[in-house]
């Protein structure tokens, strides 16, 4: 196993090349295995994933195309102390983001105090004016957050993105663990790996905690766009794990500001909807009128406080890339605390001086669309061609407010099984943070890995894979 100690922090070997203590038991175990053993286990994993049907649909290809996300059998291991710091940082961040959402949809203190320019929030495409003054149970907006974290430099954590709309990937986190335990049961005996399989219980508990006032035994349902959605596997998986109904828009009706599902025994009331449908498609009477995925009248029931939506409508304004640079200020403003996790320095190209700086240095920066996601519409400077940079420069100059830029982080690497053997590949981490009456999370998250050598793009739609993530108990 070779690392690249000069350039990147490696999860297994740090910067020096020496195997770090938390990887020791694993490495000792692997080194005793015959080489064919891992090859065989890898094939076994492929067969199992195919049979279980853990797939995702890829947009832009033939409708209904399903693909497997490559699964890597080398785990990403996080020492207990690192996780404790990360956990505190994540909880702090999500708490501040929820306070921010409550604030801007009500008193707007942070805008009045001039911490964030009001225009930037109120004119943001993700700001939902219909939410103004509407109170939600427990003042919680982002019940489920998938915060993308990377390690860079000497292993410091940086937050890349706060995903507060309908973050996905948690099913892969859970299935990867199940797969590792199925393939290598013996290795779990040598490592004290913190369990994560209670995530669905925590999620259900969180959803029940935020039921409308006065509902004692809330009925929770998961709203999916349907079986052709790229994350449909996850929707069915979570509904099954929580023992709740998986509903589509056509299964719900609204009568007297109350939401019901169509069941074989007549209409049944629904109190909490874990919705995996974007804001725009939720209710054709309020948002996009052409949406067939939503439920006419849903918003009226929501406004009347007769149903809880998780996440709330309008959370996108807080995870927007143009709002990202302000999160440290939010933490300071609402909690009076210093941010525990780093933000990546960000140039906002709507600012003239930032734009001038960035267009000169496209070859060394990462440029992202403010509203983009999934790794689409971004430029990774060091990996780009001259032609790509020229094309991007034109796009940026034409619409500077649509872009931000960040330094290319030296993302940490993790040993990964590739064609040529085990080699370091860049990874990120998406822990899932749950907010109900309190903020909770299971130790770990989804580790995504860029399988192409040198690539920094970990998105599954762009050739990324996943790994099991082990947080050690001590």
């Amino acid at each position, binding site marked *: 196993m070779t690392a690249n100690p000069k350039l990147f922090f490696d999860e297994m070997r740090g910067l020096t090349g020496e195997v770090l203590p938390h990887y020791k038991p694993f490495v000792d175990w692997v080194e005793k295995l015959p080489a064919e053993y891992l090859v065989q286990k890898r094939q076994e994993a492929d067969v199992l994933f*195919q*049979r*279980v*049907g853990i797939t995702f649909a890829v947009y832009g290809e033939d409708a209904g195309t399903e693909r497997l996300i490559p699964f890597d059998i080398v785990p990403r291991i996080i020492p207990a102390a690192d996780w404790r710091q990360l956990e505190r940082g994540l909880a702090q961040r999500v708490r501040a983001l929820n306070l921010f959402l409550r604030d801007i949809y009500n008193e707007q203190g942070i805008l009045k105090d001039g911490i964030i320019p009001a225009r930037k929030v109120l004119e943001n495409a993700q700001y939902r004016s219909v939410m103004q003054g509407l109170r939600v149970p427990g003042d919680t907006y982002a019940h489920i957050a998938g915060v993308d974290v990377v390690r860079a430099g000497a292993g410091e954590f940086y937050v890349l993105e706060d995903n507060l709309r309908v973050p996905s990937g948690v099913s892969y986190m859970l299935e990867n663990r199940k797969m590792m335990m199925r393939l290598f049961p013996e290795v779990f005996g040598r490592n004290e790996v913190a369990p994560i399989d209670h995530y669905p219980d925590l999620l259900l508990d969180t959803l029940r905690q935020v039921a409308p006032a006065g509902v004692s035994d809330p009925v929770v349902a998961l709203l999916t766009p349907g*079986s052709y959605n790229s994350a*449909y*596997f996850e929707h*069915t*998986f979570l*509904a*099954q794990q929580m023992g709740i*109904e*998986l*509903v*589509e828009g*056509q*299964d719900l*009706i609204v*009568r007297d500001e109350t939401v*019901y*599902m*169509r*069941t*074989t*025994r*007549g*209409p049944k009331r629904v109190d909490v909807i874990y919705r995996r449908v974007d804001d725009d498609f939720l209710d054709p009477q309020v948002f996009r009128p052409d949406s067939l995925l939503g439920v006419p009248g849903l918003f009226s029931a929501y406004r009347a406080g007769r149903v809880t939506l998780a996440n709330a409508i309008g959370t996108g304004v807080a995870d927007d890339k143009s709002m990202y640079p302000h999160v440290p200020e939010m933490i300071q403003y609402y909690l009076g605390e210093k941010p525990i996790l780093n933000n990546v320095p960000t140039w906002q190209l709507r600012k003239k001086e930032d734009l001038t700086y960035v267009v000169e240095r496209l070859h060394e920066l990462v440029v992202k669309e403010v509203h983009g996601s999934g790794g689409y519409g971004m430029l990774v400077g060091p990996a780009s061609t001259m032609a790509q940079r020229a094309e991007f420069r034109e796009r940026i100059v034409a619409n500077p407010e649509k872009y931000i830029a960040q330094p290319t982080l030296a993302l940490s690497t993790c040993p990964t099984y590739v064609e040529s053997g085990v080699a370091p590949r860049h990874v990120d981490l998406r822990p899932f943070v749950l907010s109900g009456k309190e903020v909770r999370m299971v130790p770990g998250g989804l580790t995504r890995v860029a399988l192409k050598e040198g690539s920094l793009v970990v998105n599954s739609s762009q050739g990324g894979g996943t790994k099991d993530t082990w947080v050690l108990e001590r």
Partner: protein
Amino acid sequence: MLSRTANDLYWMSRHTERAENTARMLDVTYRMSLLPYRVMEPGEKWAEPWALPLIISGLATSYYQRYSELSPENVLRFMVLDASNPNSIYASLQLARENARAQRGAITIEMWETLNQTWLEMRGKQFADITARGVSEFFDWVKDRSHLFRGVTFGTMIRDEGYSYIRLGTFLERADNTARILDAKYHTLLPSVDDVGGAVDYYQWSALLRSVSAFSSYRKIYRDVITPLRVAELLILRDDVPRSLHHCMNAIYEILQGLCEEHQLEPERLAGEIHAQLHYGKTERIFKVGLHEYLMAFLASSGALDVEINKHFLVPTYA
């Protein structure tokens, strides 16, 4: 339970059962085609054995839209691999898997894995794979996968409402198929009374019995020669033969009593009515009415039952 879920589960098992029945039907056709046979009216294509599966499934018209010649290979291609024929084995297994995929949360992991695996294997099959070692081996595979799915369902699924809809789909599809197969044999292949009791007659009836896995049951029950009257009794009126109309209606009536609970709903009443006719029926009366007429009346009422089940449970019209 969500109506859409119930609907998907119902169709998941119907499609699985349909794939199995199509395999059974094609298998019996194949076996019959190896025997000498009488053509009812020489020159009429539909009277040949390979027309039988098309007639039974009501697909002759759409077959002739695609193929000009009636040939074993064409019929096999059409009924096994043709994705555009919604009743082909290929399409049935695909639809069953799609229904299951949509309802993964409502079924067990083992059930899903079984249907998904079946579909993945089916998807990889070429015509040459199916005929390579004789078509019967392929048909056995389809039956095995269906048996496996039913067994996995029986052995792993919670006995909830969803289980009831799965069984409902199985038995409605099976009853429908048994009625069709019996009718086709009786009316298409054996018009002449002179043939009754002959060797051809014997082989055809025994092939039919084998196609519904009832040959040894027949032997066990009658210990005598095969006669149309007894075959009809076996496959219509006996309640201990798992593919008979009576057995299927027993199950359907019982399931619907459970689903309708104390409410007096039309599906339960109609199922009770059909069931009573089988329960108190007599073979002599069936032949007096005419077997064909009797079976057509049965298919009409089971179709009506399907409509009522849809209206009350699967695709409710309220609001």
